[in-house]
């Protein structure tokens, strides 16, 4: 089976990248590709729960949209990036999975495609 890792490293609002990256993951899963999302750097903010972007800035909630890849796809959150920003695991959406550097290395090796959006 083909596989892909979509890396998002930009904050979910102010940039279109997070939303567009999730759309690529959704389309990939629809085609039978084992697609996962990795949030790293400021991209980890996309996994915060209780985002209110629809009410406040009229933009889709990236946190809610991330559920669209579940359960076929995984939403990985880079552990170091999370710690550096003082965010706790309990602050994240339920489908978020923490990933450390070693596990990320092995995950990357296993993927056919790696796309940084």
């Amino acid at each position, binding site marked *: 089976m083909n596989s892909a890792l979509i890396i998002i490293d930009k904050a979910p609002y102010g940039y279109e*990248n997070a939303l567009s990256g999730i759309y690529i993951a959704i*389309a990939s899963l629809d*085609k039978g*590709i084992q697609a996962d999302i990795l949030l790293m750097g400021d991209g980890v903010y996309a996994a915060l729960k209780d985002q209110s972007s629809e009410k406040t800035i009229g933009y889709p909630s990236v946190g809610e949209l991330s559920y669209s890849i579940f359960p076929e796809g995984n939403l990985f959150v880079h552990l170091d990036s999370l710690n550096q920003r003082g965010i706790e695991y309990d602050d994240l959406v339920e489908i978020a999975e923490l990933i450390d550097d070693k596990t990320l290395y092995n995950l990357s090796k296993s993927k056919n495609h790696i796309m*940084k959006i």
Partner: protein
Amino acid sequence: MDIPKENSQNNKTMVIVLLDGPYISQYVNIGCEMAEAALNLGYGVKIFLYMDGVHNLQKDQNPRDFHNISYLFQGLIKKGCEIKACIRCAVSRGYQDQSQFLDGVEITSVYDLAEWMLGDSKIITLGG
């Protein structure tokens, strides 16, 4: 450039995803140069325009201070490069239909990018 015999029969394809529009960065030029090199080596090349990348194929570009980027894409299309653009991104940016783009570009959905990922291809994203 002559196509080396060892590469002329392969079925491998390079897929380039362009995220930036023209002129704001060098990514588009680099992507086009990579595409041309791959085509000259006998590889298939496909380009998917995503987010601001859809602006690259807009007709009637007329930069005063830069080379017109659309000429690069026209050359790639003539060499057999397949180019598609995301319809969601295009509509968001005010494009109404195909007529606003260079001939040879197909406006389609991101599901076609996923389709390209299924074959014997390698994907590179540039920009963003």
